[in-house]
């Protein structure tokens, strides 16, 4: 599966920059053996970097070029060369076709054909492995053709751009392609289905609205039986729909023109669209709430409410960034309405019975629902807008497992700072109220002072860090190691780059060096390798380790039977 990200993925490669790549490519395909040798040596360094991840094409090219170089040097006999070329060609054919190989083995010939590798090269490979060794002439020809192929298929096309795929997620041949096709088809189908479902949902909701308007009008005029029946049928349909695809229903509900009314709808219902928007504590105007109440009451279930809440916040985030005020207002109003419904606070304790009855009538649901508070909290914070502090307050008040008190306060405060709403009056602890108010200027001032104090030595001004470095330097004194004391802003230099280093790909060449040969010393090799070791006695040896003492060795020698 390809990543459709617009930004290309970055990969680690063995060459420091494009210049080094170009240089190596140029040298590999030059006719000058000295340059080719240079390129081969560089590829050896690449192999060192890549560990076992060297690209197959690079490996194969290097192997073939090596054959060419040795051929031109005239140091080897024809028979030697045939073997060298042979190994390189066999490896090329096998390794390059390996990725084409599916789970079932397929003939090399076919795989090579797919890759535009001439058939006679595969035959040549078979000659090497199974038949009489080919002549040197054929070897040279094969090598030349393969190198050309590699240049065409790999070197010249590489680093010219192309979709990024991972080292790890290489495609697995045909099977995956087939799978992809199938998946595309099924995607298409499901999308069509989705579209249909979406349409029916929309239509149902629109007819619900129509019915409601009619019944509202009807409340003033004559009231027939038919509309009511229609309504219950509609509600039944919608209920059914919600059972099938809750998600879709909520999505549509939250579109403009439904729970978020359009200006016209507001007018029809007799609300002033600009009356309430912008208030930090939004409530849904009563007519609108009443308008939707039958539907919401019918759909009411914990999972539905949870879903609505989550979607509300998701939509709120989008709306808030798009600055659509009306939408923001209604979304947050509905959110706060639902939260209030769920609230277990008895703020209405002193109301009269009739009042209570009236209030209950307007509630979407009666019983407290256990919502997923943690999710709601993060969703709420994810969608900052003017009414976020209010919603946050509601959520915090209502959480099943409340956060620590001061955490709540800090959250609220930070939230109101962020949304730049007039801070809700917090009951700050006394001592905090008397603390100076920090502004950005005071922070700057503080920083400046700190810098001055540290003598402006380093930009970070991190005194502690300096101490640590000094301590390290002290410990290292007397050894070749030291803490780098150059005044270098290391953060400006990525790994692998130092101040003053040029971009020239030859800048890291070592002209003079001394070689050192170490015998295999530290892993104290025993002289007796491959000895016959009869079962080593266990516990008796435990104390002295595994080194056999002289008498042991003697005994072993007795037991030896030489052949």
């Amino acid at each position: 599966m390809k990543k459709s990200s617009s930004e290309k993925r970055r990969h680690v490669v063995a060459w420091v920059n494009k210049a080094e790549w170009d240089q190596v490519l140029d040298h590999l395909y030059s006719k000058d053996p000295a340059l080719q040798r240079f390129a081969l040596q560089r590829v050896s360094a690449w192999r060192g970097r890549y560990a076992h991840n060297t690209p197959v094409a690079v490996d194969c090219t290097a192997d073939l070029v090596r054959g060419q170089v040795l051929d031109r040097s005239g140091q080897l006999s024809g028979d030697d060369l045939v073997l060298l070329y042979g190994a390189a060609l066999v490896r090329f054919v096998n390794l390059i076709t390996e990725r084409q190989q599916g789970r079932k083995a397929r003939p090399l010939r076919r795989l090579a054909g797919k890759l535009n590798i001439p058939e006679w090269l595969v035959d040549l490979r078979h000659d090497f492995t199974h038949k009489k060794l080919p002549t040197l002439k054929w070897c040279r020809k094969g090598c030349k053709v393969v190198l050309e192929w590699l240049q065409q298929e790999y070197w010249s096309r590489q680093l010219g751009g192309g979709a990024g795929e991972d080292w790890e997620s290489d495609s697995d041949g045909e099977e995956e392609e087939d799978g992809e096709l199938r998946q595309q088809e099924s995607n298409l189908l499901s999308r069509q289905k989705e579209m249909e479902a979406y349409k029916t949902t929309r239509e149902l909701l629109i007819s619900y609205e129509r019915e409601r308007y009619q019944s509202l009008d009807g409340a003033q005029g004559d009231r027939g039986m038919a509309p009511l029946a229609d309504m219950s049928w509609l509600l039944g349909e919608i209920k059914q729909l919600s059972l099938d695809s809750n998600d879709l229903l909520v999505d549509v509900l939250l579109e403009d023109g439904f729970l978020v009314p359009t200006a016209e709808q507001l007018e029809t219902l007799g609300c002033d669209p600009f009356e309430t928007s912008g208030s930090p504590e939004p409530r849904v105007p009563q007519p609108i709430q009443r308008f939707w109440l039958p539907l919401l009451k019918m759909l009411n279930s914990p999972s539905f409410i949870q879903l609505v809440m989550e979607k509300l916040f998701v939509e709120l985030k989008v709306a808030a960034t798009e600055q659509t005020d009306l939408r923001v207002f209604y979304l947050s109003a509905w959110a706060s309405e639902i939260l209030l419904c769920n609230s277990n606070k008895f703020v209405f304790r002193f109301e009269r019975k009739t009042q209570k009855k009236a209030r209950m009538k307007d509630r979407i649901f009666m019983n407290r629902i256990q919502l997923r508070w943690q999710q709601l909290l993060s969703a709420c914070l994810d969608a900052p807008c003017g009414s976020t502090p209010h919603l946050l307050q509601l959520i915090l008040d209502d959480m099943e497992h409340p956060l620590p008190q001061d955490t709540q306060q800090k959250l609220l405060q930070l939230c109101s700072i962020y949304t730049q709403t007039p801070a809700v009056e917090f009951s700050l602890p006394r001592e905090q109220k008397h603390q100076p108010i920090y502004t950005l200027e005071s922070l700057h001032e503080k920083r400046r002072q700190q810098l001055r104090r540290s003598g402006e030595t380093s930009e970070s001004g991190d005194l502690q860090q300096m101490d640590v470095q000094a301590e390290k330097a002290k410990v290292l004194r007397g050894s070749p190691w030291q803490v780098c004391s150059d005044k270098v802003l290391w953060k400006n230099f990525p790994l692998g780059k130092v101040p003053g280093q040029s971009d020239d790909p030859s800048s890291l060449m070592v002209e003079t060096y001394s070689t050192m040969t170490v015998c295999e010393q530290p892993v104290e090799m025993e002289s007796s390798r491959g000895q016959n070791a009869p079962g080593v006695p266990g516990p008796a040896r435990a104390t002295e380790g595994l080194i056999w003492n002289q008498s042991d060795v003697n005994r072993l020698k007795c037991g030896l039977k030489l052949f």
Partner: protein
Amino acid sequence: MATLLTHKWLFASMLGRFVDAQLGPNAGDVAEPDSAGDVSFSTGVRTALGSNVGLASAVTSLLGPFTTRPERVVVVVGATATSTKLKLPAELNSSAGTIREFSSLTASIMKVNKNIQVKGKPQKWKDVRSKRCRSSVKSSNLNSSPVMVKMVKEHQVSIKKKPSLKRLKNKPKTVSEKKKNSPCGFKKLESQANGCSKFALDDEIEDLPDFMEGSESVHINGMETSEESEEVPGSRLEGEALHHCAQRGNQQNRAVLVMQKNQTLCFRGKCIVTCLYGRVEVMGFTIDEGQKSYPLFSPASHCPLTLRALGHTDYVRDDRTEASNILEDYLSAASRKKLVKKVTPTSSIILLDPLETPLTHFLSSFTHLSELFSPPVSELMSAVLDTPLNGLGVIPLASNIEGLKISRSCRDALGTVINACKGDLDGCAVILVCGVKNVGKSTFIRILINTLLNHTSNVDYLEGDLGQTEFTPPGCLSLSTVKEPLLGPPFTHQVTPDHMIYYGQSSCEPDLDGYLESLKSLWRRRPQSREIPVIINTMGWVKGFGFQLLVDLIRFLPVTHVVQLSHGFSTQCSPLTPDFLRTAQGYQTHPPTQTALDEFSESHCPPKTYTHLNVQSEFQGVARQGTATHQRSNEHRELLLLGYLSQLQSDDSGTVRPLHTLTPYQVPNTAVALGVIHCEVAPSHMFYAINASLVGLCCLAEKVTSKGGPVILSQATLCPCVGFGVLRGIDTARGLYFLLTPVDPSVLRKVNCLLLGAISLPSCILTEQPGFEGEIPYVTADYSFDLTGAGKIRVFKGLIRPSLMGVIYRCASRPARSPDLQR
């Protein structure tokens, strides 16, 4: 160079021809069939559900600034808080945004710096528990409040009062004793013992969880037993139950959890656990009340951790009031009241604190690891959300995720080994653990070490698994002394081993002799007078030469126990019993001839004996390479290295400093030698290989002298390694290497050799260097993997390719874990 390579090629070529000639003319016509039917191709990252995971952790990170790391507020205000959900707009900085509490917050940062070390007494079986008082969880890693300090003090006091909480050495636990104390516990134990345990098991072995297994028949040394599933009425804490028995702290972001005996909590995430009351067990390690706090890591990369309440059996006490007193410090009155109702004499109460260390900060700074401590995709549906625990980074899992599964045979083996360690064994127990890859060796060893640490303060550990090392970066053989329990995957407990050799490959196959010699040499460095158990981990390569190496190891080292893990009914390799070893062919050793045997039986030396224990692994996905995100073994290796490199982060600040911003060490290139272990690099091009690479810091015995220019080893040797570094840059003009390393300067001064191996720097270290617009060395976005030959060599599992033998590329019959090559 050219000649050497030529030789290699000539040999390879001839070898190939020879083999093909033997096989006949048709063998190579079709590219060798692969037996890769069982290779499961990774299905890639399923991101569709991914968004659900992050919510809880998002809130954690959001609350982080207020609760755990007050100083982070500054970061938030500075509009650089990309990790927090609540990004502050830049305009705020210029407008008069006021932060009243800023100073009070910073002022309240307090750290517990009381690092009470248990000193001395490394020998044999000591009652170590009472000394492990609660004081430090690497205290520098934790920002604790005054409450924490108070708590620490209180518990130190309480420990003084009750010095003998922990079981004593060889304390016989008679049934009657149990009966007297907790009758209900007795019943369970009895029924459990009905099975097959022929060993006198320590109670905690019996306590190891197996109640998830259901009824299964298990083969133990030919004896078949069956267990009833309902014998242990343990249950998973999940769903609603968690709401009732857990409460959030009233002041800090922490939670208190009441667990009934045998109840379990399986979770993803990370936390610090403190046992306030009773006793709980994690990965074989028991934590008593009064014991210090331990960090738990349960990332998506490994099997989730399971906390299990054991209840205390020691004495009856007035549980409610005592519990109420304990809880007073942590909970508000209302939630305390709710919780106390749940407390019975056998329940345990644990305190969970959020865990933020330089390691976790460092890891989360890489985008692909941001979800590391969230449940993997397969567990998303089982994650219990919105409990009081979620807020502090613990995501409980429902019981359909079984967590760590310990088979009966595994428990028996543990019991035998523990008993042997406690018993009158001459010298120390030397336990070699072997088995095919992905069979659970490391997990078994972790449980074994943890269980041993219940009794002793130290366990020695000899690392023989190059691919999946426990305490070091991969590619190392090492000898470590383990003092702390292993309550998380290896990357969370990277420590400096006592001795280490950088082998430089993630498999031992390129140099078998070197592998054996290194292990032998490490063994010799172990003080032989030490009387603490040694655990030897081995590779997952149990076929062919790999098996012969195992035979050699058993012969070379004074092994007393061989634990052989296997799975299913097929045998992965022959059982390495003492009898088998009498005639087995090793790589370096050979079985004695018959005459020699006779001679030995006459002599006073008895033939080598040891206990052979067969363990059947039964967990889900046994012997299969993990394919989910973070679970492939190359990802594990990457995590190991990141874990190691996170030591470069300074302890105290919560901000992550990318590697390239750190001040490096410098050393003249004439003073240290350079070498490449895994391939041949032309000396004049050496810098191209080693620049911005991971290098092993080694100490050669010889003095390094230069006749001018950098010193290059003609051939890298296996030599003592003290740690790793990133060769940050090379100043060719001044002849300096710049190196970043967490190795202590006092050790660094002795380093005179830098070795490059096949263990490369995690790619994210290079690709995710913030602050650069243009080109970064060794990083490109233009490399296309779609072109033919652009990828690395792909090897099918089980595909034998004789033509590759002798060349350093890996053969198909490769040992150990190398998913990257088996795909």
